């Protein structure tokens, strides 16, 4: 999924002002997948939403503490939770077709074996020829794996819906938008001549007092 463009970024401008623009666009990008991603069958929308969450997470990771109001830190944690959860769902979406594909391969191979066991000119296939094929021991594990992945996906999707509802209820978007417009209080520069600042500076540089 291609990222939305962020207009008006200025290398000479303040980090926080630029980051605010980026956060605003990334938030809109994340929300653009709702309501599509709330449908469990909309796999692509969910995958794209995960990428959008990742983009938002990374800009917050770099700037939340240094540039924004206090809610930005909370938003970073929530975004990470969302991205993690969507990642786990994505894993299921990637792995389940692979398991089903492997089952299909083995079944086709077993069918070829069963056919080969029958006489070439047989009128019909004796069902007993379909048992104990080379892969019969593998069915159970693969079927269990497929069931597990499908059920896990369903469960995780329910958790995603809950998490998303909670984010909406908490006013995540509006609060982060607001926090991105806030600026942390400026820290006064260190004065090496003051006792306290001098000690801190020496401590930071590893020098003894």
């Amino acid at each position, binding site marked *: 999924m291609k990222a939305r463009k962020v207009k008006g970024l200025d290398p000479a401008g303040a980090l926080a002002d630029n980051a605010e623009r980026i956060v605003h666009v990334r938030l809109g990008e994340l929300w653009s997948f709702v309501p599509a991603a709330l449908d469990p069958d909309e796999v692509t929308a969910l995958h794209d939403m995960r*990428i959008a969450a990742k983009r938002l997470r990374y800009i917050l990771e770099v700037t939340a503490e240094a540039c924004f109001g206090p809610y930005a830190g909370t938003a970073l944690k929530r975004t990470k939770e969302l991205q993690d959860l969507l990642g786990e769902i*994505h894993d299921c979406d990637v*792995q389940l077709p692979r398991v089903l594909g492997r089952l299909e391969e083995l079944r086709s191979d077993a069918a070829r074996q069963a056919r080969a066991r029958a006489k070439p000119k047989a009128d019909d296939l004796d069902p007993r020829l379909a048992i104990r094929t080379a892969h019969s021991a593998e069915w*159970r594990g693969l079927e269990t794996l497929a069931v597990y992945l499908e059920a896990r996906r369903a469960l995780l999707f329910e958790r995603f819906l809950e998490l998303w509802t909670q984010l909406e209820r908490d006013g995540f978007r509006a609060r982060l938008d607001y926090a991105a417009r806030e600026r942390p209080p400026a820290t006064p520069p260190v004065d090496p001549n003051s006792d306290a600042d001098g000690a801190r500076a020496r401590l930071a540089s590893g020098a003894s007092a």
Partner: protein
Amino acid sequence: MAKAREIDGLRADLPFADAAAATVAVRAEELFEHAAGVLDITDIERVHDMRVATRRLRAVLEIYAPCFPRELFKPVLAEVKALADALGARRDPDVLLDRLAGLEDVLPKAARPGLEAFAAPAREEQARGNDVLEAALAEAERANLRARLAALAASATEPRVDAGVEAAPDGDGTERARADAIATAGAAPAEASSADGAPA
């Protein structure tokens, strides 16, 4: 997962370009700090940590894209992406095999042949992924990616004629490209596919 290192001196009022220089320099160093032992398939956390480091680096490169001269930025970003892809080629089967091992511990013995039937091709994929990664690491070394990343980071604070200026409508292409970089900045990496689930 390795925690991202703090960027010293990052402040709200710091010029974007200065923040770019400081952040990219640290994230680039982190990448190479995690390079040791990544080809060892018995310790999959090494690849994971290096992959996370490439994602963080790629993310900050894209966030700060407008601060860098395009002719330096574009090839470096492409190489970081290539390295990230190679790490992904190893990481995806790593994750799958790790999960299968976890399932093997809790499922009955009768399920094991099936799990093994799924694990066998994943192991082959892991071996191929390791070859891809080995080649990518060699290429990064050959192309001197580390030094070029350091140079790119430093370039953000070097004075440029076009610094901070929007592209002229009919510029010579450099300005146009720079405007494009300005407009697309802030984009973090997207993935084609992944079984990692692990956030970077």
